[in-house]
């Protein structure tokens, strides 16, 4: 991790294949260039493959330069566009984006459930259908268990048919209703049918609906009767008590955000990934959660799959992916149980407990294993390959990708402490942004782990970083902020000089 990424070198490697030889005095012999890859080296993982055979890497990136630059920078949107003529690259970028949106969908379910249930427990949930409607949709799209409970609180109104539909376990996207939620889900429907993320990304910046609230408190809301207030005011006038300050005469706008944006974005992205990575044989777009369609990644697991099928991936080799694909519980867990990693002692265990020290020990084993692989590649003596590996921080990249998968797996087992340990050891703390050093998934998963641990305000820190690269998370930022404020309503803040 000691080498910081040099953008100039990155562009050099990816955009000008001739640079492959510009960094060393002695170009490798032609014999080496044409050498048949040693299967023993390929089994070490794609980062070792690049280190040992940089020409393969150069040839690959020469074909779709901008796409690989973007994928390396974890900029999946740009990569999808740039891989116009490379279905494998495009499928990889779509898959990464789908997994990210899946993470955010899960987060949305968790955050909204915590927010609305905590608010309801205080007995101050706003009247109206908006709050239970958002909570019910969030539970449905985030695969929560409280859909029915929230939907039953939606009373008669334009969106009540939608509440009825999702309470029966059916998706809300095909329901025709005239309310604001119906209009938003209609937009989802059209975007999903067209396989087009753009309308949803635009809609993510706006709440589904708003309600303007006058600030005047109800009599007695602050615990004092009007009579008591008048008495206090009189006392204050006589200099005996605290001055009763009046509320400023301003309205505020309550906003309700779309909790299903990420479900639809994930589904659309899964469909695109499957379409590309299955060789174009996928069925038309439909809800990917239904069935096992996400496993149709034939081009990525073929025995002769090209480097593009695994470069920058959480699975070291295509054989690892092939072994994991039938067994993984979701696309976001692909790579977690890679056989080649199990040989170095990681990714083996079930999760007996939410033990962060066990996670740290596993990371230490991973680092030891990766150091051994780096040594083997180094011993091969390809200076250019090693330069690519170091300049692009490929070992760090693989390590982070895999630890993110492992963290996701821990979260699905409800082991947030363990997930947090993986994530904090995975991320590059010196660079607090999404980019080549840190994937967006790192921040999405950090937010989820922290939220699950009651660290709502700290989840906001992770979302704040994520929002700079993915502004569509605005609604999640707002609902998480609301939850943080709600959880602190009874507290007295503390502050100190540092």
């Amino acid at each position, binding site marked *: *991790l000691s080498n910081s990424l040099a953008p100039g070198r990155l562009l050099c490697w990816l955009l000008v294949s001739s640079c492959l030889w510009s960094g060393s005095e002695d170009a490798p012999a032609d014999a080496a260039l044409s050498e048949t890859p040693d299967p023993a080296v390929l089994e070490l993982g794609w980062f070792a493959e690049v280190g040992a055979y940089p020409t393969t890497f150069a040839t690959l990136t020469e074909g779709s330069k901008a796409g690989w630059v973007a994928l390396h920078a974890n900029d999946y949107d740009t990569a999808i566009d740039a891989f116009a003529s490379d279905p494998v690259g495009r499928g990889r970028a779509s898959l990464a984006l789908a997994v990210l949106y899946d993470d955010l969908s899960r987060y949305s379910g968790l955050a909204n459930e915590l927010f609305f249930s905590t608010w309801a427990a205080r007995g101050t949930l706003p009247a109206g259908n908006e709050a239970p409607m958002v909570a019910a949709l969030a539970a449905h799209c985030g695969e929560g268990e409280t859909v029915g409970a929230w939907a039953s609180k939606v009373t008669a109104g334009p969106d009540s048919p939608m509440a009825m539909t999702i309470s029966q376990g059916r998706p809300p996207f095909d329901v025709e209703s005239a309310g604001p939620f119906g209009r938003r889900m209609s937009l989802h429907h059209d975007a999903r049918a067209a396989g087009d993320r753009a309308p949803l990304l635009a809609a993510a910046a706006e709440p589904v609906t708003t309600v303007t609230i006058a600030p005047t408190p109800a009599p007695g809301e602050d615990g004092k009767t009007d009579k008591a207030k008048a008495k206090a005011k009189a006392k204050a006038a006589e200099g005996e008590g605290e001055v009763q300050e009046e509320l400023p005469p301003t309205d505020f706008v309550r906003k309700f955000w779309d909790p299903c944006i990420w479900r639809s974005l994930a589904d659309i992205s899964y469909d695109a990934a499957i379409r590309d990575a299955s060789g174009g044989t996928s069925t038309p777009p439909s809800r990917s959660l239904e069935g096992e369609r996400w496993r149709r990644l034939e081009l990525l697991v073929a025995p002769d799959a090209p480097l593009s099928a695994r470069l920058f991936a959480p699975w070291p080799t295509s054989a690892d992916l092939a072994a994991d694909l039938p067994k993984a519980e979701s696309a976001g867990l692909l790579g977690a149980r890679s056989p080649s990693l199990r040989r170095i002692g990681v990714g083996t265990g079930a999760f007996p407990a939410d033990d962060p020290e066990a996670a740290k020990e596993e990371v230490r084993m991973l680092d030891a294993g990766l150091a051994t692989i780096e040594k083997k590649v180094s011993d091969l003596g390809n200076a250019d390959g090693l330069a690519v590996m170091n300049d692009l921080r490929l070992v760090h990249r693989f390590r982070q990708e895999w630890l993110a998968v492992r963290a996701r797996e821990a979260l699905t087992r409800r082991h947030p402490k363990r997930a947090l340990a993986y994530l904090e050891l995975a991320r590059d703390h010196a660079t607090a942004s999404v980019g080549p050093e840190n994937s967006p998934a790192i921040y999405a998963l950090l937010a989820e782990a922290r939220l699950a641990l009651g660290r709502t305000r700290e989840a906001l820190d992770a979302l704040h970083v994520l929002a700079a690269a993915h502004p569509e998370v605005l609604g999640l930022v707002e609902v998480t902020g609301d939850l943080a404020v709600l959880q602190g309503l009874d507290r007295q803040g503390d502050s*100190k000089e540092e």
Partner: protein
Amino acid sequence: VARSQPVNVALLALLGLTAAGGTLRYAEDRAPAIVNPLFATSMSEARLDELVFEGLFADDTELKSTGRLVESFQLSDDQKSMTLRLRRGVTWHDGDPFDAEDVVFSVEAYRSAVTASSEAGRVSWIDTVTAQDPHTVRITFKKAEYAPQDKLHFKILPKHKFTSTGVKRTDPFRTAPLGTGPFSVKSFNDDSSITMVKHTGHWDPASLDEMVMRQVSDKNYQAKLLVYESLEALVSVLPRDLATLQNDRKIELYPYQTNSWWYFGFNLKSKTLSDARLRQAITMMVDVDALLAPIGTGDRVSGPFVPSSPFYNHDVPAVTFDPAAAADLLTKAGYTFNGKWLKPDGKELKIRVVAQSNLETAQDVVINIQSQLQSRGLTVEPVFLDGATWKEKVLGARDFDLMLSQWSFDRNEDIWEQFHTTGTRNFVSYSDKEVDQLLTAARDATDPQQKKATMRTVHQKIAEDHPMIFLWTLDSYAAMSVRVKSVVVHPFYFFTWAPDWTL
């Protein structure tokens, strides 16, 4: 809190599976000026207090209130009073038993006008507190409270060590602090370090035998001490050092959330600086990015919150560095320029900038701003004060023009004390009736979305008044030796769960 069970720890130690005991040495930029929770104003003091003292309640690791000195409680039906059953068997570090009279004494001491505690606001919601028997306390509130336990985190003091509830800063307690916490102060050492030892009589004793706080003002030196294993922990790492420390496999980084932001505060009691146009002009003369560069990366702030805060108003931009516009503003305000800026009365405009002497980074920033402002025609006199003088001259007497400091907030980010006219930490003497009203409305709010909207308006109004040059926020990181296990860091008080840490 799911703390280690003593029996299990003992069994594991017997089996050689865990090493009980040991000394954890940690570095602070500056040592606490006082060890008395009534007068804690700095983070180093709050962190040390967390080891030595306890509140009735504290946060568990999921940041929910859990009983510390309280075993159970009952809230009345009208939510206007509560009865607390105190934990039995709790002793002060000198062996005396803790009881209900200590709780009553502490509340009275916090709110005593003689004490003038900067923490008085933490008990302002309490109406009465009475000891019903040695292990039972009844508290009544000024208004109904939904979860009063969330407000009962302030530290409890030993009544038997004081002669009156009116406690002075100079009370001998400051050099012989006594709490019920997991560690007791053993010695204040000549090198400004403080040694604490495990309170063996604690109801849930710590795993570590000893904690040592070392004052190391040089951040580079702090990092070196950690790398060379002369320290086990740094409580605050600068961004510029993160890359180095994360590459060391013997060190682990722990991010935590202190909601800290740096600022230069104007003294609004000064007649000259009471003019908002002058404050805005000075702000526009400062290239904040250039001030930040030597420290590392950070986020600019445009007001009194950090950008990830729910209260941060992203529609309020940070003031842009624009010396030409600043000059125009000064001219319109009646100032003239003849190589140096002259006030409307013809006298030279001079600014005295005050910072703490033992903070290396603060000194760099002050020298930098001096250079910047002088190059634009302002005479700047930098003054560096030690911790005690800082408290006396700056926080007490308000003897400064511009002060460099850094506020840290817990997750509630309540800026009432900093910006309300009557706030106990309003060291810049800011006063605005509308902001006062908004802050009070926010504090009393029961609707989280309304509170958020109100605080965003507060951000906007304060930014428009320029009471401070709002600078930046830095990510908060601790760094620890990997030998320290089971570490969970409290996002504000840091050491809340240190009793669970092992070496």
